[in-house]
């Protein structure tokens, strides 16, 4: 039965959230502008409405999750993003797979941040919350789902399936509810995809906080004071958004099969660009706090990071990237609304900045080359140029759209090879940044002139030269550009480590944030260089055949075809494909599909033999077992060296009815490298079409060729009982024992021949791996010969690709150290803010 109540409740909550955010904005505005006497009551009123807004926003999320969790497929959102076979944690992913759900997530985080701000602030609450509530009104309008004529405001996640789908079934039965939903995009069925979007959206949401402080400061004439409360939040944004981006990269690395962690895809770029600007903003804000310069730059950067987040959202969600990105959303008709949102805050920011521009204090003093301000400014500029270089080509589809909107024709396309294109610039920017951080940190902590600088840098410089020389020789880095990276990376690590050691000696860990983050940067640079620059495809197909005669070029094929059980040499390894496996609930490791027979129920199978792993029997033959996501198969690939099994990898693949084959790689992690394997194509997964049969005759003990396989007919055995058949008096059952030799494997096939009176029964033996079905056609007692009828099908295979990613751990360690650095810095700046606030100075 259709439950319309819950959807109506959700929709009501959306409207309530929208109205309450507008009321809150108005009342906080009043609170800010009215006289002291009236303030208390306006504040109370505003808070009450913000709480109402908070409760309704949380309810929206709860209702949507309830709809997904209880499989209410009468709702379009649940139908198109969930299915019954999903485990609970993937239902969480279903929640934000759609645009509406991710807007709700964004709204939710803003509410949390707003509540934190209300309770940690004294004098900023009013103006900051005006900006907050206005942003919330815009965000909630994205899920309003109000249609007035041609005007569509927002897309509601609470619409019923029958309102969207034009299926004829609804004319017959309006209360029709589909049995199951279409499920979650299998690429998102990954634990990183459960936690990556909330992190990223918290990062996105948190960029609002510094922006709100800035607007509040400009509005109320506190042109300088906003920096102190905004700074810890800006670092918080950098930490969380950075974490979200890294998780995304890690997800791409472990789940997607492009063979890396960064693809310069427009969607990736769109989140990376604001992050760069946030980091630049942190630096100019810190400079301002120390020496009252760079305030105007900070204002520009803080505005820009917020606007860029909106621009990123627009790029990803408007469908404008449809031709250039593999994972942007399709257009929901919200792009106009998003643009209004973007332009509104852009104009507000420009208006307030322009109004107060002349009143904003600037330092007249020219920054000396030996001042930290100068070097930090160069660093922030470099970050800005990095961002510019990425956003410009990423926006090419937007330029085309604009040109076309004015009636022109533009057929510009993004660079054909984005990785080479972006690397060309970003590599050198990275080197410049590394050098700047190394030098900049010394300027930061010490008063510098020419001589002092020379003295301070001499030791780290020499140490890093030696260190770099060792790395270059040992790791055979013979490319000039890469050598420069190693040098710059080690220099920043050594220089910052020197600073860090000095700080720790004075036992002021609180101040270590900067040097930690910079050490992280150095490690990231070196890690990226090794893992990308020296990534090696080891699955090169050596067949050497040219594809077509009329075309001379030989192309290396980066994939290899592995027939089951047939070994293949691949660089240092010999690899063998051993067949498909499933994951079972409560059973560690993987279980061969040959031990399972699927039932009609989702994720359920019958064990065909005992399931024993490491000596422990988890299921007995005939037990019902639960499969974890039946659609997923794990392809067992063994890696040998010197005839010895080194390790086994289980890359996953899912033949998806709507998307075709979805693959997730598996990696062997070594300390100094990863060996990464993924499946590019698999044998057909439909019911096999058996070939017309061949007949073979053999006597016991004889060897013969069964198709491509040498086979031994061990002999016949009279049976007293046959599974699934009740033997009667006088029945004769004979089992033929065949052993098929396939390379190093001996595979038993045991067809059964039954005689009851004048009729015969034949129970074939099937092996799907080999693609063989064999049955005993006849037994002639006179000649003692069995005749076998054999049908064949393609034997199982997998097409796979394997890469070695050297020193990828350096990259991951670097990112972790950088994020810890941000964390330390947040603690320090927040502590500062609290102390000032409690003194009443904020």
């Amino acid at each position: 039965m259709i439950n319309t109540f819950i959807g109506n409740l959700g929709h009501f909550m959306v409207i309530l959230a929208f109205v309450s955010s507008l009321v809150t904005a108005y009342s906080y505005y009043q609170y800010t502008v009215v006289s002291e006497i009236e303030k208390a009551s306006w504040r109370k009123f505003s808070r009450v409405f913000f709480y109402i807004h908070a409760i309704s926003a949380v309810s929206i999320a709860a209702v949507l999750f309830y709809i997904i969790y209880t499989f209410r497929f009468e709702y379009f959102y649940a139908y198109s993003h969930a299915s019954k076979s999903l485990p609970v944690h993937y239902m969480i992913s279903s929640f934000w797979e759609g645009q509406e759900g991710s807007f709700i997530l964004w709204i939710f985080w803003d509410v949390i941040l707003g509540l934190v701000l209300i309770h940690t602030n004294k004098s900023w609450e009013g103006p900051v919350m005006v900006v907050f509530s206005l942003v919330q009104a815009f965000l909630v309008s994205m899920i309003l789902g109000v249609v007035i004529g041609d005007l569509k405001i927002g897309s509601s996640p609470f619409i019923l399936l029958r309102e969207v789908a034009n299926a004829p079934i609804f004319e017959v039965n309006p209360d029709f509810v589909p049995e199951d939903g279409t499920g979650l995009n299998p690429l998102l069925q990954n634990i990183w995809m459960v936690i990556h979007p909330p992190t990223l959206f918290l990062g996105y949401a948190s960029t609002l906080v510094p922006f709100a402080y800035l607007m509040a400061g400009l509005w109320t004439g506190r042109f300088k004071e906003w920096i102190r409360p905004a700074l810890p939040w800006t670092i918080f944004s950098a930490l969380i958004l950075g974490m979200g981006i890294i998780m995304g990269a890690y997800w791409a690395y472990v789940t997607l099969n492009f063979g890396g962690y960064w693809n310069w895809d427009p969607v990736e770029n769109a989140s990376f660009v604001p992050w760069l600007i946030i980091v630049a903003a942190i630096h100019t804000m810190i400079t301002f706090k120390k020496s009252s310069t760079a305030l105007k730059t900070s204002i520009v950067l803080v505005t820009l990071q917020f606007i860029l987040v909106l621009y990123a959202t627009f790029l990803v969600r408007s469908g404008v990237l449809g031709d250039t990105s593999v994972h942007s959303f399709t257009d929901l008709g919200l792009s106009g609304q998003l643009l209004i949102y973007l332009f509104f805050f852009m104009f507000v920011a420009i208006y307030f900045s322009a109004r107060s521009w002349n009143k904003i204090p600037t330092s007249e003093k020219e920054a000396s080359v030996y001042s930290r301000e100068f070097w930090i400014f160069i660093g922030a500029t470099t970050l800005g140029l990095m961002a510019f270089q990425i956003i410009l080509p990423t926006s090419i589809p937007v330029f085309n759209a604009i040109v076309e909107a004015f009636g022109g024709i533009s057929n510009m396309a993004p660079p054909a090879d984005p990785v080479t294109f972006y690397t060309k610039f970003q590599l050198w920017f990275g080197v410049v940044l590394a050098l700047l951080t190394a030098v900049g940190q010394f300027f930061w902590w010490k008063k510098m002139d020419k001589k002092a600088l020379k003295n301070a840098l001499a030791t780290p410089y020499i140490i890093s030269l030696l260190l770099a020389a060792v790395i270059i020789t040992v790791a055979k880095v013979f490319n000039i550009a890469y050598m420069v990276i190693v040098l710059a990376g080690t220099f920043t690590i050594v220089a910052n480590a020197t600073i860090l050691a000095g700080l720790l000696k004075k036992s002021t860990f609180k101040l270590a944030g900067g040097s930690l983050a910079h050490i992280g940067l150095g490690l990231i640079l070196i890690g990226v260089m090794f893992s990308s620059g020296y990534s090696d495809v080891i699955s090169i197909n050596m067949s050497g055949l040219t594809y077509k005669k009329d075309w001379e070029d030989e192309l290396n094929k980066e994939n290899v075809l592995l027939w089951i059980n047939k070994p293949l040499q691949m660089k240092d390894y010999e690899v063998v494909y051993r067949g498909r496996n499933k994951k079972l609930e409560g059973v560690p490791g993987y279980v061969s599909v040959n031990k399972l027979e699927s039932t009609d129920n989702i994720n359920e199978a019958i064990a065909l033999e005992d399931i024993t792993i490491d000596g422990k029997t988890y299921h007995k033959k005939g037990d019902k077992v639960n499969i974890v996501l039946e659609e997923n198969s794990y392809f067992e690939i063994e890696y040998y060296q010197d005839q010895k099994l080194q390790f086994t990898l289980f890359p996953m693949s899912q033949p998806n009815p709507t998307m075709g084959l979805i693959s997730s790689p598996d990696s062997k992690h070594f300390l100094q490298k990863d060996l990464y394997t993924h499946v590019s194509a698999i044998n057909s997964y439909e019911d096999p079409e058996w070939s017309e049969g061949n007949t073979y005759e053999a006597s016991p003990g004889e060897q013969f060729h069964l198709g491509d396989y040498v086979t031994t007919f061990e002999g016949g055995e009279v049976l007293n009982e046959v599974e699934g058949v009740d033997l009667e008096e006088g029945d004769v059952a004979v089992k033929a024992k065949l052993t098929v030799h396939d390379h190093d494997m001996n595979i038993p096939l045991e067809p059964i021949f039954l005689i009851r009176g004048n009729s015969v029964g034949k129970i074939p033996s099937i092996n799907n791996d080999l693609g063989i079905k064999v049955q005993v056609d006849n037994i002639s007692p006179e000649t003692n010969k069995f005749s076998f009828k054999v049908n064949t099908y393609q034997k199982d295979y997998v097409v796979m690709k394997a890469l070695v990613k050297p020193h990828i751990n350096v990259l991951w360690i670097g990112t972790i150290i950088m994020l810890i650095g941000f964390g330390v810095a947040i603690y320090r700046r927040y502590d500062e803010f609290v102390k000032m606030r409690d003194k009443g100075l904020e």
Partner: protein
Amino acid sequence: MKKGHILGLGIIAVAIMIIISSIGDASSYESFSTAKEMANSGDDAPIHVVGQLTKDSMGTVTGLEVSEDKTSFTFTMIDNDGTVQQVYYNEPVPSDFIRSEQVVVIGAYKNENMFVADKILMKCPSKYQETELKTASM
């Protein structure tokens, strides 16, 4: 000249370099016929061609030939000008290839008859949003 000005000029110079290089390295959406002209005049820069897979009257994709070792394939594609062209791709058939409504191939002509794709982008309308109820799920 103040240091600030030199710095500003430096920044502007780098920004201009970035803009010029972005325009220079940007590819373009072309048809097969212009791609062929480009190749004939010695320009082997990769370009984007947008088109569809050829299909028979039943809607099944035609002209798809997978190599024996299944690690590469050729297919025929019809661009927006109606030119039919055989395209070679040195990778296994992408998972949702035959379901794609539109394909973008990025590559260049290697000879008169063969367009070699370095990369294929596919657009499957059902990829991220279900717009139709599939009968199979009824």
